[in-house]
């Protein structure tokens, strides 16, 4: 697939990185030669210097025969104009734009065909906000992901001694919670992964990925660890784009405090927020944290745009008694260093947002993709087409399907109804199938499974 990416910043860079290994021809455009050089030195792709909204630059980047345009520069306007030009001048079949301003998103016609012709708009800040809101709602989870429009949830939990299922084989799950149909799709222990079957025993410290209907998540998590009391008080360090969105989303249900060091910004967000308290000060200011009762906080979320600041303030908050700390960390090596150490959850913004894009790049009719464990694993939802002859999945029992190693079929959604996949579940055409892939290497084979053989079309 030929892909043109506009913007070599954090989003553009990580999109390029996760796509370049998948037999795609990638060209990255940016106005900053420095950033492009850094990318080109690391990855096998082409770079073009210039503004992504200029037709000549796009032409130089080979937009004429591109299959996909991913416009993720800092500027909404550049992204929108680029999509329009790509659609009208160069007939690029699919266009994705990063759009932050809610004004543009409010009216369908802005992004529609008579507007800027954007197929899909993504807003990384919103995706991250949703991610963190889920963590506030389910404080025991490491990550909560939605499939089938929110009907099915995939939840990552660290197993602790004391959870009823820990130390027992998986088939006990059925006996423990007979009403609930849930499926454990993968277990990560240390650096390796285990493909679970009925006899697999969960050990304390395992990272368990579990699929269940959205309303059953809590019951499943209870099997794996002692439940905490629900979150009531949240402190947000950093009142930037994400901090503000987060505060807006949470302030009605929780007691929220936002710390922001820029006075002007404080004024601005205080005007936007109702219930939440806006505090002017440094996020690493011990006295400020102390006077705001950091020890009573159920959750401390560091979302400034500075990695080091986020890490230091999280560590500080943790030591001063915050029950759970979540930190936004861009640099991958930092994430690996800190995840599940003193910081409870380290969120990599790039990994969190890339899934939406990946869904559009995958072959086959893919609805949703979630990148997990820093890009090493992936969960995807795809629609099955064709019949037994033309597709490797249709009208087959799950245990008849020849799956690549490390791949599990988790659940099937058929006409709005969620069916947990068991060995005798039969997959039909038009089912939404949720697949968990523990090794990214096997993705192309999984994609091929969903493709309908050409000769039968």
């Amino acid at each position: 697939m030929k892909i043109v990416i506009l913007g070599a910043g954090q989003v553009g860079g990580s999109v390029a990185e996760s796509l370049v290994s998948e037999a795609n021809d990638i060209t990255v455009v940016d106005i900053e030669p420095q950033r492009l050089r850094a990318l080109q030195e690391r990855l096998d792709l082409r770079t073009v210097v210039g503004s992504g909204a200029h037709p000549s630059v796009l032409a130089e980047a080979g937009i004429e025969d591109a299959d996909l345009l991913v416009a993720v520069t800092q500027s909404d306007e550049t992204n929108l104009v680029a999509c329009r030009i790509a659609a009208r001048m160069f007939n690029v079949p699919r266009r994705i734009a990063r759009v932050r301003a809610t004004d543009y998103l409010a009216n369908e016609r802005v992004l529609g065909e008579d507007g800027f012709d954007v197929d899909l708009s993504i807003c990384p800040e919103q995706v991250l906000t949703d991610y963190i809101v889920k963590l506030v709602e389910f404080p025991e989870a490491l990550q909560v992901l939605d499939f089938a429009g929110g009907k099915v949830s995939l939840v990552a939990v660290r197993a602790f001694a004391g959870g009823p299922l820990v130390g027992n084989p998986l088939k006990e799950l059925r006996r423990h919670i007979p009403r609930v149909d849930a499926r454990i799709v993968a277990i990560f222990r240390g650096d390796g992964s285990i493909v679970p079957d009925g006899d697999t025993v969960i050990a304390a410290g395992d990272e368990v990925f579990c699929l269940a209907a959205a309303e059953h998540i809590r019951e499943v998590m209870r099997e794996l660890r002692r439940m905490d009391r629900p979150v009531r008080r949240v402190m947000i360090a950093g009142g930037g784009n994400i901090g503000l969105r987060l505060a807006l989303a949470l302030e009605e249900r929780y007691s929220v405090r936002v710390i922001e060091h820029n006075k002007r910004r404080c004024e601005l967000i205080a005007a936007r927020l109702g219930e939440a308290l806006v505090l002017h000060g440094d996020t690493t200011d011990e006295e400020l944290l102390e006077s705001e009762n950091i020890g009573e906080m159920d959750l401390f979320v560091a979302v400034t745009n500075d990695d080091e600041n986020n890490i230091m303030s999280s560590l500080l908050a943790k030591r001063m008694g915050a029950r759970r700390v979540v930190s936004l960390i861009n640099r991958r090596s930092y994430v690996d260093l800190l995840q599940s150490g003193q910081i409870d959850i380290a969120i990599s913004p790039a990994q969190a947002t890339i899934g939406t894009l990946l869904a559009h790049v995958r072959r086959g009719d893919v609805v949703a993709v979630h990148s997990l464990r820093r890009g090493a694993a992936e969960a995807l939802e795809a629609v099955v087409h064709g019949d037994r002859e033309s597709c490797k999945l249709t009208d087959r029992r799950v245990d008849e399907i020849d799956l690549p190693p490390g791949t599990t079929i988790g659940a099937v959604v058929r006409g709005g109804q969620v069916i947990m996949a068991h060995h005798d579940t039969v997959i039909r055409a038009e089912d939404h199938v949720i697949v968990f892939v523990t090794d990214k290497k096997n993705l192309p084979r999984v994609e091929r499974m969903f493709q309908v053989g050409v000769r039968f079309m």
Partner: protein
Amino acid sequence: MRFVAVVNLLSRVLVLFAASMTLPWGVSILLDDGAGQAFGWSLAATFGAALLLWLATFRERRELQVRDGFLLVALVWTVLPAFATLPLLLSIEDLSFTDAYFESVSGLTASGATVLEGLDELPPSLNIWRGLMIWLGGMGVIVLAVAILPLLGVGGSQLFKAETPTPMKDTKLTPRIAETAKGLWLVYAGFTLACIFAYWVAGMDELDAVMHGFTTMGLGGFSTHDASFAHWDSPAIEAVAIAFMLVAAINFATHFLAWRRLSLGPYRRDPEAKAMLLVVALSVLLVAGYLYLNGVYDDFGTALRYAAFNVVSLATTTGYASTDYGQWPIFAPLMMLFLSSFASCSGSTGSGMKMIRAQILFKQLFRELLRTIHPRIYNPVKLSEIPLSNATVFAVLAYVFMYSTCVVALTLLLTASGLDVVSAFSAAVASLNNTGPGLGEVGPATTYANLTDTQTWICSFAMLLGRLELFTLLVVLTPAFWRK
């Protein structure tokens, strides 16, 4: 440093190289020229060595870092010639390893300096092998490996840069490095076929046409005849040679773009190609006029014919001769040697310090001049409307300084080893520029066989140095490179 991983890649390139020996082997069997066994054994030995290296190292597969790239390129360019000597050693009696290695280096670096005499009596397959070495080395063995073997993914672009360094043009022609390499080789192969056909039409026999097609496009200058192009004494053949030498001296990226877009636009927009053609044309006229006025040739037409062929041959660092230009008044051959040090374009199969560096240097010179007149002027060095960063200019300055240092050092070394000044200087320049013949004892009428072993090794080193544009080889020789 991941030495083991680098050796593993080396073994793969070696397999590719062994495979290339099947062409001369086939020719030898077809013509039954007596060298068949030599090629059979060489192929087996090269393949065997590659297999052993591979078995010893295949567990270590890692992505290459910049450093490893330099090491691999340096290793490939020193180890491959050693294996290339096998067919020569096995089929030519009394050939020392020193001389055989020189001949192989000269071939792979597309220099065209030879130590062999009696080329006309050599088995044809051996001449094909000499031509093939030039052809492979001309565009670059690593570039070929990147194109064919799917092994140099990420590290590939580093290798690419290490083997074919240019001061600018970092932008790739296609998104994937392997595609770029493939494109370049296809264009190269296409031109080579055209060249072979043209030679054949102009009157060469098939074997000569193939061998000279290889050496013309690789800008190497090996010939199947001791007399080089004087053997045919045919204006038609010389015209074909001139045309294709000039084609090969233009950046292949430009050829690639022109071919892809099916337009001549890329040539028009390539400032380097324009400058090269202009400089060569003026030099031909200058030399022709000089020869005519000095009475070397009686009429201007003849002077122009010989000047055109030999000036183009040397300026593009090929090294063919259609007459013994060593007999010309010294200005002419010196001028031609001087041209060889900068006339060919970056990304072509020619060597030397490349036209683009000369252009940048020249513009920098004017910039300094202007600055003395207008102290507050802001005038960046521009190349086809694009301003260059000072870092680029500095890199070019450093390169040119390094280049001059190398010329001086090599000349001194060769003089110290007992060579006369003219021969030493011309051998140093001709080797460093991968031109081939020099003047005096290493002139177009003689060969490098007269040199002592020490001098031969110095010249071999100089050719490798020139082909890898100094830094790639020199950086591997610095202690800092090996420090952990």
